[in-house]
């Protein structure tokens, strides 16, 4: 099954331009990141099984773009895509950016995020479960490894994002 993700909101013209610009800016970072993760954590591909060729749309609702992931070890794809024209995807994972980062690092429990409705998944549930279990078997912090790629500036941005998310989470109560 393949379907297009529903855009959360229709960006204005300026928003569309900003979204495309953001995609261009972050793409080199994403490419570097996904190859680094694949190199350091090769065992995660085995847990994906037949879903190495699955197209995932990861949609951080508070960013101006979404992410297209195809975890094929022979042709890895992690690219930023405009949120108003998402690609066809087999599975969609949607939530706030920092929540998604915490799930990648297993700082937050995915089932609990799903129960609280902070995490929304649609499409191929098995694909999502396999990706979750593959990521959960990784040791270390992908998020901190990513921040470290950019030195003190990267770590400062991460710290700021975490503070901002913690304050936002209080405002959202249980969510």
């Amino acid at each position, binding site marked *: 099954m393949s379907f297009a993700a529903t855009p959360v909101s229709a960006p204005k013209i300026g928003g569309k331009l900003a979204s495309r610009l953001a995609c261009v800016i972050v793409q080199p970072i994403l490419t570097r990141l996904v190859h680094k993760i694949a190199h350091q954590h090769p065992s995660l591909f*085995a*847990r*994906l*099984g037949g879903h190495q060729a699955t197209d995932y749309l990861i949609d951080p609702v508070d960013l101006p773009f979404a992410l297209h992931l195809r975890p094929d070890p022979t042709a890895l794809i992690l690219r930023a895509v405009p949120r108003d024209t998402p690609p066809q995807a087999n599975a969609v994972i949607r939530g706030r950016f920092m929540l998604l980062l915490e*799930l990648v690092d*297993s*700082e*937050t*429990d*995915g*089932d*609990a995020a*799903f*129960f*609280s*409705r902070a995490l*929304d*998944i*649609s499409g*191929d*549930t*098995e694909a*999502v*479960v*396999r*990706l*979750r*279990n*593959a990521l*959960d*078997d*990784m*040791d270390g912090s992908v998020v901190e490894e990513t921040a470290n790629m950019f030195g003190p500036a990267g770590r400062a941005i991460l710290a700021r994002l975490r503070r901002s998310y913690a304050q936002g989470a209080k405002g959202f109560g*249980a969510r």
Partner: protein
Amino acid sequence: MTLAELICPAGTPAALRTAVEAGADAVYCGFQNATNARNFPGLNFTPDELAEAVAHAHRHGTKVLLALNTYPPAGKFDLWRDAADLGARLGVDAMIVADMGVADYIARHHPQMRLHLSVQAAASSPEAIRYYCEHFGVKRVVLPRILTIPEIRQIRTEIPCEIETFIFGNHGLMVEGRCSLTNYLTGQSTNMDGVCSPASDVEYIRSADGSMASRLAGFTIDTFGPQEMAGYPTICKGRYIAPSQPDGYYAFEEPVSLNLSRLLPELIDAGVHAFKIEGRQRSKSYVRNVVRAFRQAVDDIRAGRHANMADLIALTEGQKQTQGAFETKKWR
């Protein structure tokens, strides 16, 4: 006072290391096949991973229990036999079994292996438990979640083996090993294929108003309002419309988790040897937080201190918790 061992779940090697670090006395896990009741996509251990996991756990003084707690269909016993042989070769500390044939095979071919009777065996009477002890040398029974603490205390006096009870996690229909609800919709068996509500048959549909329907094999089994907490997509937790219940109701069980943190002293006093945390399908985050909380609580109780439990409500299904039948037979 019993040792009150803490038995913790691990769906991946990383989760096992997390459980060990968080203070598990023993970790239970399974192979990547139908021999265990959490045969989920991307979960569980390869033989090489289990070998490393056993070595890691033993270096830290933690035991590893291998779940072989499903029922082999006729003519397919080889998978369970091979898993038992492999587990014995890898040096696991005990095997958790439900099927009498599996128990008999291990008792005959690996007589030194310690056997625990899985909750999937649904042995809840002294007579049933004694049968497994006498015929297969079972050393511990994991009790079904249908007994009150006074009943557990009484059973303890009538059986020759240790008792393990669940203390936290999924609280499903309390006929473990007998439930066939998922078979009707998916054609797969919880008890023989090791998976309830296979992920490949689960679908979540979001509506424009923010509500979410969970479907299993094309059948809607619940719809959650925009602000409503969700639960697992299992038939036993489904909400159904009936002539007398036009707005829908939970016919079997609600989305809720078991949490016996307040009953730990009574359970220890009743003679429970080990406390089991459910959740091999959950994340390292869940394992870390739940194991740490119960490690602290059990240590406090054993030291004669008041147990100050961390709040685990955020990790419960539907963000609701219950003491179930342990508190009262009136539950559901």
